[in-house]
């Protein structure tokens, strides 16, 4: 009785183990291949849910089904125009053929390291065969210019290839090289990009000198503008004043002319009028030219004193 009990227990445990080793659950995010003595058998399992295998002799190898990350190392690379930059890249990839992937790479870690080789290499190639500007810019859009005179400074040089195309190129080349690995790279992008430290300081210097140029330009523009306004002021002032003088003189001249003709028409009527005028003017002048300091010697012969003499 007792031994039978134990025996049945052992059988139950064995059966249970067998059942568990022949069943495996695939998560929604997973795919798997079944291997027999290390050799893959059957189609890869990609449907999530319960799956079966022969216990003990068959083993399951799980792979992720999702888009996986690949983060590139920060590489120092010279561009075609000999500028040293470091480039940090990333990619998304997917195991599209788990069987192939298993045969070639065995697991995800070696997959990552193979991607390192391929993508880093392609990145270097692509960077080295393009100018920095092509790697930075992606379109030939015209920049918005804040100040008119900064147009030459705010101008962006045109590119022939562009960042998008370089990324696409690297992606295409890498995919060609990974096609037999059961892997597909879906997207490749430059994450970070910057000058290496030594170059960076020189770039700072250039930026500073550029800014100084702008500042100088602002300043001299201000001075120029101020001078222009001052010039305008002087011109307007001269114009206003001289025009006023001209008009005033013209008015005066006209009045003088009018007055002269009025006088002439009165004094120049005939000989008698002229005689009277000159007599009146002499009298007036006479009257104005004597004062208390004047000494006169008058003869009794004169019109005024002739009667004085007669009285004597």
């Amino acid at each position, binding site marked *: 009785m007792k031994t039978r009990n134990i025996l049945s227990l052992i059988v139950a445990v064995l059966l249970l183990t067998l059942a568990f080793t022949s069943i495996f659950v695939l998560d929604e995010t997973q795919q798997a291949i079944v291997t027999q003595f290390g050799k893959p058998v059957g189609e890869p399992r990609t449907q999530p849910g319960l799956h079966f295998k022969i216990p003990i002799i068959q083993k399951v190898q799980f792979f992720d089904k999702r888009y996986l990350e690949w983060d590139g190392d920060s590489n120092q690379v010279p561009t075609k125009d000999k500028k040293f930059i470091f480039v940090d890249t*990333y990619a998304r990839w997917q195991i599209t053929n788990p069987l192939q992937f298993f045969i070639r790479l065995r697991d995800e870690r070696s997959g990552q390291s193979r991607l390192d080789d391929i993508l880093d290499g392609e990145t270097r190639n692509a960077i080295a065969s393009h100018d920095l500007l092509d790697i930075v810019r992606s379109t030939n859009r015209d920049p918005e210019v804040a100040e008119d005179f900064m147009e030459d400074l705010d101008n962006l040089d045109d590119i022939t290839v562009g960042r998008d195309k370089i990324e696409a190129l690297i992606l295409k080349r890498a995919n060609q090289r990974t096609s037999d690995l059961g892997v597909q790279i879906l997207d490749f992008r430059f994450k970070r990009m910057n000058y290496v430290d030594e170059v960076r300081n020189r770039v700072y210097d250039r930026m500073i000198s550029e800014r100084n140029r702008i500042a100088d330009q602002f300043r001299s523009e201000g001075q120029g503008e101020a001078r222009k306004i001052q010039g305008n002021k002087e011109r307007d002032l001269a114009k206003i004043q001289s025009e006023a003088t001209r008009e005033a003189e013209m008015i005066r001249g006209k009045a003088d002319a009018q*007055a002269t003709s009025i006088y002439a028409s*009165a004094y120049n009527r005939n000989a008698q009028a002229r005689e*009277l005028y000159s007599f009146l003017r002499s009298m007036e002048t006479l009257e104005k030219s004597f*004062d208390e300091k004047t000494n006169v010697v008058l003869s009794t012969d004169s019109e005024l004193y002739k009667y004085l003499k007669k009285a004597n």
Partner: protein
Amino acid sequence: MAEPNYRLQYYMFLLSKHFRKILLGLILLILIFTSVKTVGPEEEGVVMYVGHYDRTVQPGLNFILPFGIEEMKKIPVQRQLKQEFGFRTVEAGRNTQYSKADFNDESLMLTGDLNLANVEWVVQYRIVNSYNYLFKVRDAEKALRDMSEAAMRKVVGDRTVNEVLTVGRQEVATSMEVLLQRLCDEYENGIRIDQVVLQDVNPPEPVKPSFNAVNQAQQERETLINQAESEYNRIIPRARGEADETIQLAEAYALTRVNVATGEAARFNSLFEAYVKAPEVTKKRLYLETMERILPKIGGKVIVDEKGNNVLPLLNLNQTEKK
């Protein structure tokens, strides 16, 4: 020594007696724990049946099949999530503190004119498709960070440093938003970008003073122009007024001149008419009248006889003058 032994035996006895009940209780407990799930108000529950996606359940009390036959993952779909670039919020609150120390690599980027700019930004997003979020991309958060950095650099790479720093800020954020959403759709990561907000955008630290100098120079320019304008405005209207005055004065002169001439002419004419009637007498009268007015004003008068001119009359001019 026997006492504890006895007690242990007693426990063993109890255990064996109630073994079934205890087992049943345990199973019941596990059943409850593994099948009753609460989904929070901002969450959504994704239920998987033996690894297979089965259904998505709404907030509230939910039941799933026990013992791991069904599993549930909760995704906060209603919550707005955010990622920070170039800085980290250390402590949010009234006095939010930021740490900026070591994120230079994250924020320093090349502009289209091959200058450098320090751009800090925030991406606000929401998980709208929890299925995609869970099952399409591994580590969707990290993927979003990478995408975000790449997208920002791409946008900034097509703009001048001036645009990024000043006029184009809003435009950068908008373009970035569009680009990032496009990438999210491409990746099918179930994320919707709510907003990209540009925080501090600065020139790199060593270059900052020269950027400030540009601002200063700009102000200086405005000041110079304004000063000149105000000088102009101070002088010119006054000059206009003065010019008017000059002209008016000339008019006044003209008026006076013509009127005086007319008056004098009229006076002369009247006089002339009278004079013509008796010229000699009038002339003499006028002469004598004039003399009458003049002579009293004259200081020294010497009257000499016409015949006494052979005797030179002594006239002490100096003395007369001294008087």
